[in-house]
């Protein structure tokens, strides 16, 4: 007899529902951790309450009835007060959501309360996803969906097992029987006993189907842009995490360098155009004052245009013949409001409207606000060079409009020190900007080594001058600052540029990844001979590395990153490319790609079949030998063996699947007889043959083994009878 699987009792279903509800609450609360909302205490309290009440379900019975009475007025009052005090609607709503979750965690939930928990949790997940646009959201949403579906399933089962009358009349401060008898290890054992692996596998398969269908729906949902968009981040006050600002003290870039998280990902249509060691410039700092470089108001005024709101930014670079290389940037949140660029460009496109100011003369683009989410932009026609042409600068310098870029705000003693070092670099000769820059770099490399933990020598005066005069090690900021001071002291205009240098090629996503640890600072010295700002980096790996000869496939392959972190980064890139950055144009591109893929795969299939047929014909037409004969016989033998094995054991495998591993009718003959009996149900007017076959099948199914007829002939006759019945039924239905 078939062994019957046990069923969960109503109490056990309640316990499972309680456990899933608690887990769902915790999952939703975890999103607050990276939402940058000041609710740590509330999150901690809610989490602790949710964990405790989930594990010990009798605890909610100890909550005084007065709390239930006052809960909702209090929550509403707290929300109104919060909104009034902070004037920030979204954080207040998140805190309200958490308060409601807290209350639902410490009280016994009915069906509508369970639904409320799901909706509250979904709100937190969606808000976190919209605010962060991170890959973590995708994982969290998937887990949440699966969990919520399981929760809803159990809620429905509980409702159907309880009946409609169970919803009312529950007392909140009395522990229900299921809570009193909760025993989680026992529940786990019961779940294991109840679970059927086929049903679980089907559930997993169906959920995979849900993900696939949602992906298809995501691709297929028609997109059109509605202007004047209402976005959640407008309801939040902005807060910069870290990154490049208008003013950088010594040590700021080093702090960023400690962080190995991804700052920027770049897609490029022609990867051979990628320099070996690209410099991603973000900000130009021209004013120096006691160890701090900052963007001077003069440069801000003169180099940057007025603020505009648009999706397209036209650069100073003239369009060239041929298709321009397109660079798609995905800048992570919290890095900076200054966008990394390789130099001047033809055109830059944002996904949404942005408020920005373009500094065309300094190749800097600044957004008005610090983006809280990933910012994607596409640039066409980069002009990559270590020279930044500035034809207006000599005239302005002559009119003494840019004296700030030549001014050194140090004491007379420090001036003397700088003079001494300048003479040492130039050797008393009058050098051009390029030569001075080269010699200064050599001098700095000779006297200072690179270190991420530099030490400033003690003493008075300007800290940077003290460092230059010493033989202490330093990092990029020191070297860049020293170069600027030495160049200015020698009479050249100079400034510090901050951004990133280098990066790695992700072999999985075919994109370029720049991490925060690639943060860098370098100097730019104005060369009057060419009328351009010349990049001077004392920490440049090799001067030749920027040459066009290194822009090759081999160079890219050589610096490809194929580590596990690169795999994770490729997932993030996929997320940005295919999900976050998906728009109407991407939709059309995807359609085209699907069409092309379908056509090419069809062609590929046809080619494969034609090729295989041709190979077979050629093989058959070739002269026969003993070896070829043996091969042919072996292939035929293997095929026959496969057919035989399928014939003999295929049904057993199928039966094993249908039995579900446990229980079931153990004897294959009895199982087959049972199957045929289920198919052949003799009616009153059945033929005598059908009745006879059914009798024999019943003997095989229920009778003692010693009384069995030979099974195979019985099954054959059963098959014939079943086919006859089926054709008769079809005839009847047609008539």
């Amino acid at each position, binding site marked *: 007899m078939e062994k019957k699987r046990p069923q969960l009792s109503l109490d056990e279903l309640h316990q499972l529902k309680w456990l899933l509800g608690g887990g769902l609450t915790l999952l939703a609360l975890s999103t607050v951790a990276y939402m940058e909302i000041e609710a740590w205490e509330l999150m901690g309290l809610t989490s602790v309450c949710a964990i405790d009440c989930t594990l010990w379900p009798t605890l909610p019975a100890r909550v005084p009835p007065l709390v239930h009475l006052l809960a909702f007025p209090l929550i509403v009052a707290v929300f109104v007060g919060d909104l009034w005090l902070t004037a920030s609607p979204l954080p207040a709503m998140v805190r309200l959501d958490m308060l409601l979750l807290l209350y639902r965690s410490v009280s016994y939930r009915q069906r509508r309360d369970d639904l409320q928990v799901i909706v509250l949790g979904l709100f937190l997940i969606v808000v976190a996803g919209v605010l962060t646009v991170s890959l973590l959201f995708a994982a969290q*949403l998937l887990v949440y969906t699966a969990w919520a579906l399981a929760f*809803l399933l159990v809620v*429905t089962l509980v*409702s159907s097992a309880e009946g409609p009358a169970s919803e009312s009349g529950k007392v909140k401060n009395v522990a229900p029987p299921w809570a009193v008898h909760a025993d989680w290890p026992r529940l786990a054992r019961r779940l294991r006993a109840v679970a059927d692996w086929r049903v679980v596998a089907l559930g997993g398969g169906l959920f995979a*189907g849900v993900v696939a269908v949602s992906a298809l729906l995501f691709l297929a949902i028609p997109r059109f842009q509605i202007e004047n968009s209402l976005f*959640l981040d407008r309801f939040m006050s902005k807060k910069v995490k870290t990154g490049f600002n208008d003013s950088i003290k010594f040590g700021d870039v080093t702090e960023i360098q400690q962080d190995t998280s991804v700052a920027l990902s770049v897609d490029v249509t022609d990867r051979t155009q990628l320099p070996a060691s690209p410099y991603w410039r973000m900000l130009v700092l021209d004013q120096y004052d006691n160890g701090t470089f900052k963007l001077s108001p003069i440069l801000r005024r003169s180099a940057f245009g007025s603020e505009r709101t648009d999706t397209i930014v036209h650069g100073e670079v003239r369009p060239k013949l041929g298709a321009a290389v397109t660079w798609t940037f995905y800048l992570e949140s919290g890095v900076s409001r200054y966008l990394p660029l390789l130099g001047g460009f033809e055109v830059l496109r944002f996904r949404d409207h942005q408020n920005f100011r373009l500094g065309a003369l300094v190749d800097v683009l600044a957004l008005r606000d610090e983006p809280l989410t990933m910012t994607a932009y596409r640039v066409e026609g980069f002009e990559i060079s270590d020279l930044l042409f500035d034809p207006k600068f000599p005239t302005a310098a002559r009119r003494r409009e840019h004296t700030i870029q030549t001014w050194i705000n140090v004491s007379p003693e420090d001036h003397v020190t700088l003079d001494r070092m300048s003479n040492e670099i130039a050797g008393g000769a009058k050098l051009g900007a390029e030569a001075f820059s080269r010699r200064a770099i050599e001098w700095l490399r000779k006297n200072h080594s690179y270190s991420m933990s530099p030490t400033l020598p003690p003493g008075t005066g300007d800290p940077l001058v003290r460092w230059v005069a010493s033989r202490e090690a330093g990092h990029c900021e020191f070297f860049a600052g020293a170069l600027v001071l030495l160049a200015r002291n020698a009479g050249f205009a100079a400034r510090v540029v901050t951004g990133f240098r280098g990066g790695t090629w992700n072999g999985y996503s075919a994109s370029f990844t720049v991490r925060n640890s690639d943060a860098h600072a370098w100097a730019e010295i104005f060369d009057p001979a060419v009328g351009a700002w010349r990049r001077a980096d004392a920490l440049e790996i090799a001067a030749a590395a920027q040459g066009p000869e290194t822009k090759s496939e081999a160079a890219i392959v050589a610096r490809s990153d194929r580590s596990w972190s690169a795999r994770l980064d490729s997932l993030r890139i996929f997320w940005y490319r295919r999900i976050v950055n998906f728009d109407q144009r991407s939709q059309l591109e995807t359609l085209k790609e699907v069409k092309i893929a379908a056509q090419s795969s069809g062609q590929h299939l046809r080619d494969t079949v034609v090729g295989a047929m041709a190979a077979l014909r050629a093989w058959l037409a070739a002269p026969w030998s003993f070896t070829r004969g043996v091969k042919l016989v072996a292939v035929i033998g293997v095929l026959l063996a496969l057919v035989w094995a399928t014939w003999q054991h295929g049904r057993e495998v199928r039966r094993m699947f249908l039995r579900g591993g446990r229980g079931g009718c153990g004897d294959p003959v009895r199982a087959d007889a049972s199957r045929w009996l289920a198919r052949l149900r003799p009616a009153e007017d059945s033929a005598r043959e059908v009745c006879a076959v059914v009798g024999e099948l019943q003997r095989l199914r229920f009778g003692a083994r010693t009384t069995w007829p030979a099974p195979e002939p019985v099954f054959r006759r059963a098959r014939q009878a079943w086919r006859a019945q089926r054709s008769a039924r079809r005839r009847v239905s047609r008539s």
Partner: protein
Amino acid sequence: MNARDANVWSGPGSRRARRPFTWNALLWSLVWPQRVHRIVPTPAGVILFGLSMGIGTAAYNSSSNILFITLSLLLACLILSGVLSWLNLRGVAWRLQLAPPWRAGQEAVVALELRNEKKFLPTYGLWFSLAARVVADTRGFRPESTWTGRNLDVRKMLAQADAAEQRGQLALRTRLDPRGEARLEWVFKPEKRGALGVELASVGSLFPFGFLKKSIGTGLRAEVVVWPAPVEYQRHAVAAWRRPAGGERVPRAGSGGDLFALRRYEQGDSHRLIHWKASARTRTLLVRQFSAESAEGFSLWLRTDAAVWARPEQFELLVSFCATLAEDLFRAGRLMGVALDDEPPTPVRRMADLEAFLNKLALVRPRPGTTVVGMGAVEKQNVMIFAPDGARGVAAYVDGKKAAST
């Protein structure tokens, strides 16, 4: 909706529900709901739709792909809900099992047998709406249009129809295992005698997530006859019963020791009564009937003249009284025959005869337009007839003497 035989398995898992597979039918079933299928969103479903609409609006308003992906996931969950609901109902068959006799005012059991034909998927959370309504005689009715029926009080008629109907709901509270069977019982009290139609109105489910309430009309219906309710009555001593003349015996079946006759075996007969030798000879199962030990008995003659029984409640009492007397007399072995109005008398020899009479009583209505026959007109021996006893009561008379009254 055609009525189906309640005893035959019905539903998605029944043999008759299986049709030859065609792609055309599959596609149509996906885009066009079947006739008897109904899907209504629950409050949770309405919330989900509202949520989806809100997220969709926000997605278009903000062009946020995060919201688009949430929206597509919600829509995919709705599709999953439909698929799981279809899987849950697939392979499930049901049938009604009614066990007569049913009597007015006494509890009756409607059994619903369920079968899950699926190979490894269980079925959960089904409910079954059952209805029992009096089968109305619609022969005199004609269809009305809005114009011809403008004077009708439709609300009142509908309220009357609702009042004449009893509804019940059965729920499958446990898991119905694959290849498993279950039995649910609906216990209710039929209020009136007569023909009663018991219908499995719909099979519904909130499975799996409770967003949509799916119900399938089954059209599974069975008719049963509800016998009159038993009533309490008072017996009166009958002064002189007419006994047959000496040596005269009226042959009738009973529980005596003498063989009275042989008849065909019928379901319910005791196996001890089978006459094996005669059965073997005739190749048909025959059972023995014994003669009654007592020759004293009564015949019941029920006359339903509307002129006599003008009050409906008194008429109902009459029918119940007659049925109770018939049963009591049969149990005592004293019921010889029954007659209804002008029908020829029927001898009552076995249970089936009594049941046939009770079935008739269940459906009997006052007979209009007949002459009132005086009590003295009945001159037959030991015939029990009925007459009003005051304004409300009913009395039974034998040979003109009151034998029992309510």
